[in-house]
Structure formats: structure tokens, C-alpha cells
């Protein structure tokens, strides 16, 4: 089985900016994949190259085994892209826009599928409304709908939830999760790291056009982030010396201790007891992607 996305040695320079600097990446069919990185890291350029909107200076990209340049027609049929910008054609209604988009992909009669998408994205009440009259969130849903009209096996969402309210975010993710369960490959870029953490099975982190971390979400969390124990000692109490080695942060009278595993809590509490430290408050922190992200981005790669 060919991979959903295969990117080999892709570089792209815009003037003096090296937007992509030798990116290799493979996404298997059926994955829910996250592409993370700060602004300007090259995420959108990489997606644009995959969609044929940007031509790489070197390297190859393929979608479902179809080269995006030499076999662009087949490659584009396999790919649905939800662009980051909130773009729309002010001349048409939602349904017209979806019918036209279907036609661009050579689909003659797509009414049944369009109805289904409209219903799933909760656009029914606005189906015959002109695009201009929709709210930002509604326009965002139409963008998702437009990316799905040709039932692409690979769907790329470039920051689909930027500036979108909670309700829509939930609805959108439920729908995308269902598509993923049905076998569609999903690639997602987002700045909401908790979203990526809960949705993506595997994550690549991009920095200055290079992939600086690539692993399953679970492995990344394990490797770069651990549990933490946040202690607030009673007034007058001092942290025992034995625990100073674990200290990863000290703020506002709180000590943050790093733990490799959950089980490390027990010996920490034991040494506090032995030292006679009284505690005002204790909080266990779970590993999170934000910490992973910050560490990866700050490391000198």
C-alpha cells in the first residue's frame, strides 16, 4: 500500500528566506497527523507545495502515490485542502459554491454528497445564502465543505480552528474524526496544542523549514515531557536538599519538581515526610504537548 503522503528532500526559497530546507516526511494512509511549528516555520509552504500552489526548488512530493507535478491531475483528485485564510467567492451561495467546486473536479451530479456535507457541517439553514452574508465561523465550515466535495482520501487542514468558537470546534472535530475513522488520512496544522495532542496519532514539528521532531504523540510526550509535582510548602518550611535535584521551577513560593514517572511521587512525598515539611497544597501535572513544543523549539537543532 502506498503512503498517503510522501515528501522527499523538498526545499523552497523565497528570496532570502529558506522556507523549506530539505523536508522528508511520510504519512501513512489512515493516519491523523499533526504538523506543528511556530509562525513562519514552513507549514503552509509545505502544504502549498503538496497542493501544487508552490513549486519546490528541489525534491519530490506525492499524494497517494501520485506525483504532485508530473501527475498533478491524479494527485489533486486525492487531496482536499482547507486553506488557512478565510476566503470565499462573494458571487455565489453556499450550495452554488459547492456545486461549482464539484464541477472543477469533474463531478457531474454531486447533490446527494453535497447535502450530506451540508448537514454534517450544520450548514443546512444557510445553504442558499450568499457567502457574503455568512459569519466567519460559517465561512470556515464552507471551506471545509469545499475541500470535501470530491471525497479526497487525504485531507489537509491548515489551522482550521483559528478564531473559531468552541461549539464549532467540537462539531468540526467530531466530523473530521469520523472521516478519519472511515479511513481518510488527515493532516492538521494548528496552534492549539491541546487539539493536536488529543487528535493526532503522530506529530512532526517544523522549525525554520526543517523537521526537528517526528514521532508518535505518546512518544513525544514521554521523551520531552514528564509528570510534574507542584508543591506549596507551609510557611517556614524549606525544600529538603534531597529533592533539589528534581527542581525544575520555582515561582511564587511554589516548587515544581520534575518526575520521570508517576511512581516517583511516592519517594518524593516520603522525603518530605522525613524532613518534617508540611504542605499547603500539592498538584500533579500531566505531560503536555505545549511543554514538548517549547523544549523542541528551544533546543539547538
Amino acid at each position: 500500500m502506498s503512503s498517503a503522503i510522501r515528501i522527499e528532500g523538498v526545499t523552497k526559497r523565497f528570496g532570502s528566506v529558506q522556507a523549506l530546507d530539505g523536508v522528508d516526511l511520510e504519512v501513512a494512509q489512515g493516519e491523523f497527523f499533526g504538523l506543528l511549528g511556530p509562525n513562519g516555520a514552513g507549514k503552509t509552504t509545505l502544504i502549498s507545495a503538496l497542493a501544487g500552489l508552490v513549486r519546490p526548488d528541489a525534491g519530490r512530493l506525492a499524494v497517494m502515490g501520485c506525483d504532485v507535478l508530473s501527475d498533478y491531475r491524479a494527485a489533486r483528485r486525492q487531496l482536499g485542502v482547507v486553506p488557512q485564510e478565510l476566503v470565499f467567492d462573494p458571487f455565489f451561495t453556499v450550495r452554488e459554491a459547492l456545486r461549482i467546486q464539484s464541477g472543477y473536479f469533474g463531478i457531474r451530479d454531486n447533490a446527494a454528497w453535497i447535502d450530506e456535507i451540508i448537514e454534517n457541517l450544520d450548514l443546512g439553514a444557510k445553504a442558499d445564502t450568499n457567502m457574503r452574508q455568512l459569519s466567519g465561523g460559517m465561512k470556515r465550515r464552507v471551506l471545509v465543505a469545499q475541500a470535501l466535495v470530491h471525497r479526497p482520501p487525504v485531507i489537509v487542514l491548515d489551522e482550521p480552528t483559528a478564531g473559531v468558537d468552541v461549539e464549532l470546534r467540537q462539531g468540526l472535530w467530531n466530523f473530521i474524526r469520523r472521516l478519519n475513522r472511515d479511513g481518510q488520512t488527515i493532516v492538521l496544522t494548528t496552534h492549539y496544542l491541546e487539539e493536536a495532542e488529543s487528535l493526532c496519532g503522530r506529530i512532526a514539528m517544523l522549525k525554520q523549514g526543517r523537521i526537528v521532531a517526528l514521532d508518535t504523540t505518546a512518544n513525544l510526550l514521554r521523551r520531552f515531557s514528564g509528570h510534574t509535582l507542584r508543591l506549596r510548602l507551609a510557611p517556614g518550611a524549606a525544600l529538603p536538599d534531597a529533592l533539589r535535584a528534581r527542581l525544575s521551577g520555582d515561582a511564587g513560593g511554589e516548587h515544581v519538581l520534575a518526575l520521570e514517572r508517576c511512581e516517583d511521587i511516592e519517594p518524593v512525598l516520603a522525603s518530605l515526610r522525613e524532613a518534617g515539611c508540611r504542605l499547603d497544597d500539592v498538584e500533579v501535572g500531566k505531560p503536555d504537548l505545549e511543554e514538548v513544543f517549547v523544549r523542541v523549539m528551544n533546543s539547538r537543532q
Partner: protein
Amino acid sequence: MDGFLTLLYKEILRFWKVSFQTVAAPILTALLFLLIFTHVLEGRVRVYESVTYSSFLVPGLVMMSLLQNAFANSSSSLIQSKVTGNIIFMLLPPISYVQFFAAFVLAAIARGIVVGLGVLLVTLWFVDLGWQAPLWILAFALLGGAIMGALGVIAGIWADKFDQLAAFQNFIIMPLTFLSGVFYSIHSLPPFWQRVSHFNPIFYMIDGFRHGFFGVSDVSPWTSLGVVSGCFVALSLFTLWLLRIGYKLRA
């Protein structure tokens, strides 16, 4: 529907939805030109022996409206799509650059013909047009619309702002159409300006088009056909090349 047909349909639907602005307004403008110029010049200027000034003027106005609107259609559609960003909807699907070109040019011809027909219809009862050789009329209408449609594609792709497109329109297209013999026969010009006019391709479009109505023209319609066809081929090849390399569309 096939991608090309859909794009063509969308481009036609786009101007049709705002036809008051894209069709009715230019028809009114042409009618105003006709009223003013015939009021001032009818009876004082006779261009060809058998043709009154108002009759002479009408085909010129029809063709001028056709050309300007064909240009406006492809150029304004492209610049709007670029500025608002929705051009991405046309760039993501498997539409080839040849299909892209053909759809925009054909839609431009369609708008040009609709406006041209409109001008013709409202001026029909003012003047006698002869209708000597309808095939010439059709040939120059189609070729003229295609050339301006292709030019509109070039301008729409090149311009980054509405401002630049307006400059293209006002400083290139308008002078070329106004100074092409719409309102006069170039034989009425001093020899130097007659020679200059021969370098204006729009002169040949209008002269050949007018020949179809009256059977008389400043130059042979075959010469005009040659020049106009040559322009069409050259401009099309250039536009297709721009689209193929993705100039300003695919970075």
C-alpha cells in the same frame, strides 16, 4: 460537469449575476456616444460615399463595447479572485492551464458578444447597417473578443492591485480602442497618424468588423484578418506560457 465547462459556466454566471453593471451599463454608455456624436456630426461628416456618419459609427461602437467588456471580464474576475484569495478554488482542482485559459477567454468572448449584441439591438432602429458580409462580422467579433479576453488574463495575472489593473485599462486599452477608428475613418487623419494607426491592432478589428456591414473599409478585410489572427496566436501563446510557468499564480 468537466472542470473546464464548470469554470466557463462559473465565469459566465459571475458576470450575469451582476448584469446591470456588466451588460446594461456599457450598452447605455455606447448609446450616449451614439446620441452625442451623431447630434454633432451627422450631415457634416461623410466617411464613405454610401454610408451616413451614424451608420458608420454604430459598428465601431459595437466593437469597442465588445472589446472593452471582453477585457474587463477576464481581468476583473482574475484580479478579484487574486485579491480576495478565492483563486485558490480554481488552483486546487485538476484543471489544466489550457483549460483555464480557454474558459476565461470564452467567458470574455461571451460577455463581449452579449454587450455587443445589446448595443446593436438598441441602435438598430436609428441606422441602416447594410449587413453585407455577416461572416466577417462574426469572425472579427470572435477574434477581437478572444484577443481582449487573453489580454485581460495577462493583465489580471500581472496586476497585484486594482490600481495597477486600472492603469492597464486606462493607459493602454482605452487609448488603443478610442484611437482605432471607432469614431472616424483613419483616411481622415494626416498621413503620419494614418501610419501610426496601422500599428494599432484594434484598428484592424474595427475596420474588418465594419467591412462586414458595409462592404467597404480602410484596408482589405483579409489584411485585417491576417493581423488580428496573428495577434491572437501570439497573445494566446504568451498567455499560455505565463499560465504554464504559473507566473504570479503558483509561486
